[in-house]
């Protein structure tokens, strides 16, 4: 199956939820990544046939299905909320889409439900009612019900967002593997960059109803076409530093300047935005980290195994910017402490003043390949 959207737009009460979007999806994992209000749900509803696009076409295997209701398409949909039939057991919940199809024998239903339940690790819960399950188990049931149909199009709208983080961690690791084995177009929406990376496949980055970029997940992550893509696809947020390039030097603020690294050498002078991901901001000097930035530490967030330091740089002439550093392990910092942050110029993205990607850092893996 191949799903093609051609210049799909959607307006509700004069408000645009989707601007013109075109994409072609192949069987495999497709992640829709974007913050809230990006249009992820609107897009999935159009793909499913729950909503009709205002303009544009939806094609399945070259056939126009725009406006065909969801009942007449073979689609499975999983929502954020754990939606199950409260009066049916887990078994009957999972079996429900099969019962609607007339031609499936009872034995076949038994076999497929058990197989899917085992895969979602709820095989031991088949006799329970949804109310007797934990949130994670309820969502596993809902996902199993979607999987059992073996629909060629499986849509999951932020399915893990309402789970505790430990459950989320377990489930998303499993889901990626389960989806990878299916011959279906799986569309998975999320706000979390980490989830997109875990799922792999293709990622489409959405923001405010616009499709910003679509491509293989790691390629989008390492080469964001615009500043906004980099921001959406970074957690902690992408550091954005205003810079002026002049005569082979980059000027960050009154007191921070450094020679342009090779991947930016070809850029014309002018103003740019430099982007650097938080895990490339260090608190220790090291070979290659040539940019040294004095800053005041504002807050250190501890995420369990990582420390995320928020710091402010202010120079004498009123220039200032905010920097976020992500450090492995748990470290203690006190508030309003002076510190020095270090950047490796080879890790910097450069975006033009209007936000387009001007230069992206060479990847270590690519460098390794070159060396070999």
């Amino acid at each position, binding site marked *: 199956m191949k799903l093609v959207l051609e210049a799909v737009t959607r307006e*509700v009460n004069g408000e645009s939820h989707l601007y013109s979007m075109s994409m072609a999806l192949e069987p495999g994992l497709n992640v829709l990544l974007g913050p809230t209000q990006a249009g992820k749900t609107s897009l999935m509803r159009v793909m499913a*046939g*729950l*909503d*009709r696009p205002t303009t544009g076409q939806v094609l399945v295997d070259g056939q126009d299905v725009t406006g065909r*209701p*969801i009942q007449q398409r073979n689609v499975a949909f999983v929502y954020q909320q754990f939606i199950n039939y409260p009066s049916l057991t887990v078994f009957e919940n999972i079996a429900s889409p099969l019962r609607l199809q007339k031609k499936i024998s009872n034995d076949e239903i038994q076999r497929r439900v058990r197989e899917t339940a085992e895969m979602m690790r709820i095989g031991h819960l088949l006799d329970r009612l949804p109310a007797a399950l934990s949130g994670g188990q309820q969502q596993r049931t809902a996902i199993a019900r979607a999987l059992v149909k073996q629909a060629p199009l499986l849509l999951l709208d932020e399915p893990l967002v309402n789970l505790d983080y430990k459950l989320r961690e377990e489930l998303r690791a499993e889901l990626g593997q389960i989806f990878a084995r299916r011959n279906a177009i799986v569309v998975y929406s999320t706000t979390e960059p980490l989830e997109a990376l875990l799922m792999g496949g293709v990622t489409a980055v959405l923001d405010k109803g616009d499709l910003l970029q679509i491509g293989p997940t790691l390629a989008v992550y390492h080469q964001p076409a615009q500043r906004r893509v980099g921001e959406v696809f970074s957690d902690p947020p992408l550091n954005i530093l205003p810079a002026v390039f002049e005569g082979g030097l980059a000027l960050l603020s009154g007191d921070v300047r450094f020679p342009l690294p090779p991947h930016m050498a070809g850029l014309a002078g002018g103003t740019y935005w430099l982007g650097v991901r938080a895990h490339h901001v260090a608190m220790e000097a090291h070979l290659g980290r040539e940019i040294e930035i004095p800053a005041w530490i504002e807050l250190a967030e501890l995420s369990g195994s990582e420390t995320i330091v928020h710091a402010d740089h202010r120079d004498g002439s009123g220039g200032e910017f905010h920097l976020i550093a992500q450090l492995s392990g748990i470290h203690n910092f006190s508030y309003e402490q002076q510190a020095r942050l270090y950047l490796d110029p080879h890790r910097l993205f450069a975006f033009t003043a209007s936000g387009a990607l001007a230069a992206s850092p060479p990847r270590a893996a690519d460098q390794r390949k070159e060396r070999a």
Partner: protein
Amino acid sequence: MQKTVNHRAWLLVLPVVLSVAFSAILPLMTVVNYSVQDILGPGQRVWVGNEWFIDTVRNPDLHAAFWRNLLFSFQVLLIQIPLGIAVALALPAKGWQASLSLVLIALPLLIPWNVVGTIWQIFGRADIGLGGYFVNNILGISYNYTLEPRDAWITVLVMDVWHWTPLVALLCYAGLRAIPDPFYQAARIDGAKLWSIFWYIQLPKLRGVLLIAVLLRFMDSFMIYTEPFVVTGGGPGTATTFLSIYLSNIAIGQFDLGNGSAFSLIYFLLIQILCFVFYTTILRVGRK
């Protein structure tokens, strides 16, 4: 919302549309028919235009009934709303006591309306009624609802309070239970007294249900018929002749169908307008 279109859905709505047309629109058209013609007998009719309407609007008895009914409705609200809140506050929040008191409170609501009237007609009688006897002989206050307009008014009012305050109380009770515990806990931590808790937490959180209660009670009392008809028949004199009773006197008592129809339509319109006013008020207040 622009959904994918499925025209078969209309078929499912059709039975409802048909039955509403049969039960509501056809009878209404009959009334319209009578309100613009003078029908003297089968095949004998005279087109009179808006005469019945003008006649009705200028009728001083009807004005009197209108003001009487309005006064009654306001008294009903003035008593039943605070009383209903008070009852709801006094009810236990949980346990078997809660279930028991809810059942007891709801009893008057389960009694057919004309039975309510009959109960109070007997209850209030000075000779054989418990209430009437008590007021006259034990309290020593002269009371007779068949003779004294004031007594009749009070009887109908008390009966309505007895019949309908439980509805307000139940609505408020549901509203009170919907207030999350942290609000009470926070108020205790803030050192709030009971009165402050009522004024700053309970009353504001009840606003939604109270608006519904006011709407229902106003509409119902403005259309009241059965109970006063059974107890007082609108009397003595016109003391308890509310709009509905007056209407049935014209239409059924005097068989004055033209006047009755015109009056019905005006009455209907009035209720619609009041409904609309209340409805938009609720929406607007809810949005704030």
